[in-house]
């Protein structure tokens, strides 16, 4: 009963204290694509991803009702860091949907406008506002509407310092550029939703060689839909001065936010629920000397040499692109081609034979042919037979028929080579439905793709890849260009298994080198994957994406045509950056992939 009354009270008082309009809310999810396009068009860095930000405690004076309700402690603000544009996950502060949407657009424009961060918050935002209004005069009416609506939502504090401060902010909003500094007050000013973060948190890059576990490595673990970026700081692991001191365990409950090295073993099976993190302003992350067993288990996954696949040669050194230094790091990765040790030659699995038969007959129609077509109305040569016939008919007094008198050389040239590169990282161990894992789908795809292509006579090769840091990129040879598609190749395809990470750049570079040796006029590099590039070391986030992008660009310069087929539904945020608008396709239903891919190939190569 007590709890129910409490809940009811909370509901009532928060509703009374905070004027929000959930029915008119606009979420970031709804406008994400638009947000990205606008940000780039208005001059933002094209490599940044759009993410929802965490709420920040503003520390400003609140209205009486809000204090009673204990609400409005935090607000979601907008800021930029090296990898992301952080926007509020939802805006519902105005009673009209269009205004809430306009606020998003305004924030994007403001974030894209350059401003000198050496100035104070109030000057910086006014300058950015002026810059945006000067560059995009069409935004001015919207800005005026937004300012009017915002001024209604702001309450007038009664304390002396705070009052002047509020007046200055209002003046700065109404006449940007008119306020040179913020008057001092005891409390922080009320947050201004039309401006950027007063003190943007700086995300420190992961230290080189630092270990970051892949966030979806667990094969059958559920994908978290929480894509928020938490503000994290990387702190030094405090040295344990007194090893004998025991901490009272309950203390840790109250000291969640302060970093304390608790004398407690790292726990296994942490619940996946990360809600406490939402209550924190900052997560402190330190690398302790110990490795948790879960990570240990993961690293130990490298099979012993006897059980591992057969390595071919000593490995190949490949460069890698460092986007921050904007330079290529020569001989940075070692790629090891390998071939399955215990692959048994086998025939096509029976469950695929019906589809394979159908695909083969469809693809035989694509067989190359070069023919002289006779009796054309237009062509490079005269069709002598038709000419003689036509002249004889005419002389003989027959009525001249409308026939083509030319021969045309008809090209149906399929001079092409295709290299299929499949991602065999551990994330392919996840289940796509009740029956099959991603890896099973990839295996079936490889089978059907090979069946279809061997019917056309197009040259093709199949490779798979996974990686464990930069010195250990595993490049599985399934079928080279010279090798015939036979039972042995089928055995190798059947033997593929998921493992490790996705260092895509190096694999693409090596695949490009193999493909560029082919002399075909069209050379297609098909990349089959289920997610973003990532690896245990710094190869994650933007570093990985930018290296892969560089590798794709190199492939294009070599005259190859890279194309990505992915089943990552969230790929929309990074795929255009990697492959360009028409350089990729997202297969929504992974189970459809085996049938889709050969058809896609037919379209791509026509």
């Amino acid at each position, binding site marked *: 009963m007590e709890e129910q009354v409490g809940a009811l009270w909370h509901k009532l008082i928060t509703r009374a204290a905070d004027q929000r309009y959930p029915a008119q809310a606009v979420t970031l999810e709804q406008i994400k694509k638009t947000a990205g396009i606008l940000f780039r*068009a208005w001059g933002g860095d094209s490599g940044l991803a759009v993410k929802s930000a965490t709420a920040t405690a503003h520390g400003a004076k609140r209205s009486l009702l809000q204090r009673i309700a204990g609400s409005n402690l935090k607000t979601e603000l907008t800021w930029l860091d090296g990898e992301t544009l952080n926007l509020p996950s939802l805006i519902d502060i105005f009673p009209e949907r269009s205004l809430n949407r306009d606020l998003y657009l305004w924030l994007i424009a403001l974030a894209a406008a350059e401003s000198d961060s050496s100035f104070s918050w109030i000057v910086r935002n006014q300058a950015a506002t002026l810059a945006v209004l000067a560059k995009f005069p069409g935004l001015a009416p919207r800005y005026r509407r937004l300012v009017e609506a915002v001024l209604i939502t702001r309450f007038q504090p009664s304390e002396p310092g705070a009052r002047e401060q509020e007046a200055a902010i209002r003046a700065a909003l109404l006449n940007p550029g008119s306020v040179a500094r913020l008057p001092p007050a005891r409390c922080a000013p009320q947050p201004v939703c039309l401006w950027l973060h007063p003190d943007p948190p700086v995300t420190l890059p992961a230290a080189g060689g630092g270990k970051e576990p892949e966030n979806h490595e667990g094969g059958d673990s559920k994908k978290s839909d929480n894509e928020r970026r938490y503000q994290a700081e990387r702190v030094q692991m405090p040295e344990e001065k007194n090893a004998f001191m025991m901490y009272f365990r309950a203390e840790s409950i109250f000291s969640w936010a302060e970093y304390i090295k608790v004398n407690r073993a790292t726990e296994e099976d942490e619940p996946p629920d990360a809600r406490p993190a939402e209550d924190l302003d900052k997560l402190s992350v330190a690398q302790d000397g110990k490795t948790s067993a879960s990570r240990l288990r993961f690293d130990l996954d490298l099979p012993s040499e006897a059980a591992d696949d057969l390595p071919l040669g000593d490995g190949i050194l490949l460069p890698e692109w460092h986007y921050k230094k904007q330079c290529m790091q020569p001989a940075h990765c070692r790629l090891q081609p390998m071939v399955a040790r215990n692959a048994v030659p086998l025939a096509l699995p029976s469950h695929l034979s019906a589809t394979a038969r159908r695909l083969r007959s469809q693809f035989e129609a694509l067989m190359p042919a070069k023919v002289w077509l006779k009796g054309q109305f237009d062509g490079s040569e005269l069709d002598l037979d038709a000419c003689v016939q036509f002249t004889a008919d005419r002389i003989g007094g027959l009525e001249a028929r409308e026939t083509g008198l030319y021969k045309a050389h008809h090209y149906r040239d399929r001079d092409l080579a295709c290299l299929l590169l499949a991602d065999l990282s551990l994330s392919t161990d996840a289940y796509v439905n009740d029956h099959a894992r991603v890896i099973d789908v990839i295996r079936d795809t490889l089978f059907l793709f090979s069946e279809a292509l061997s019917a056309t006579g197009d040259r093709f090769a199949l490779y798979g890849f996974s990686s464990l840091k930069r010195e250990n990129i595993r490049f599985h040879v399934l079928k080279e260009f010279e090798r015939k598609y036979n039972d042995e190749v089928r055995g190798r395809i059947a033997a593929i298994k998921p493992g490790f990470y996705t260092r895509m750049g190096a694999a693409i570079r090596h695949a490009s080198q193999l493909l560029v040796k082919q002399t075909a006029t069209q050379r297609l590099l098909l990349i089959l994957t289920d997610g973003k590039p990532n690896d245990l070391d710094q190869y994650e986030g933007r570093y990985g994406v930018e290296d892969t992008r560089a590798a794709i660009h190199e492939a294009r310069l070599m*005259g190859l045509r890279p194309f990505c087929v992915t089943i990552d539904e969230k790929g929309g945020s990074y795929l255009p950056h990697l492959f360009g*608008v028409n350089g990729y396709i997202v297969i929504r239903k992974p189970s459809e992939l085996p049938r889709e891919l050969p058809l896609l190939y037919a379209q791509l190569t026509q």
Partner: protein
Amino acid sequence: MKMSELPFYKPHGNEIELFEHAYRNRLPLLIKGPTGCGKTRFISHMAAKLKLPLYTVACHDDLTAADLVGRHLIGDGVTYWNDGPLTRAVREGGICYLDEVVEARKDTTVVLHPLSDDRRILPIERTGEILDAPPEFMLVVSYNPGYQNFLKGMKPSTRQRFVSLRFNFPGAELEQQIVIGETGADAMLAKCLVNLAGSLRALKEHDLEEAASTRLLVYTATLIGSGFDPVEACRAALVEPLTDDEETAEALMEIVYATFGK
């Protein structure tokens, strides 16, 4: 074509001078640049300036050597030889301009080889003729080196026979003058449109396949100049030609609203 008036052209750099030097020294010219940046206009301007006839061939992937050189036509019991545009240009002297030459099939461009080196001859296999190009003859080809054309990029052996000139979209100032010169738009409108194009060009290779061309800006300004609503003109002549995706089009419209207001 009329030779009396010069087609409007605003030079970006030294291209007019280069063209004249190439013409005087009988060198073939290759122009590369994105679509709608003024390649074709430049050629017609130069042809008018040098008072030369212009033979333009828009290349496509079914263009054969016979389409360029000529073919036999059937007449009343006899066959007639009919010159193609290239042969006509060689016979009469003039500029032969092959637009988007990479679109043509590879074997087609081989007929250009003897014309584009110091021999300057055009052998016509089917009639047994060998034509010597007069000094007034000039060969000009152009293509758009976007990555989507890398598949059928030019043969290096062909490319090496040409003096090359790279075109790009003009700078903001110059582009404004071009829009004004082409359409008579007022300076404010030209500035807005060029600004808008700058925003749209930032999306190339990320959200859009091709950058917004100067030609599209001219179209837009023309629509607005004849009294059409500016925002709708941008939708019709700038946004829709750039993308088929509805969501992207909506986002592009937001950029338009940010310039012209809503």
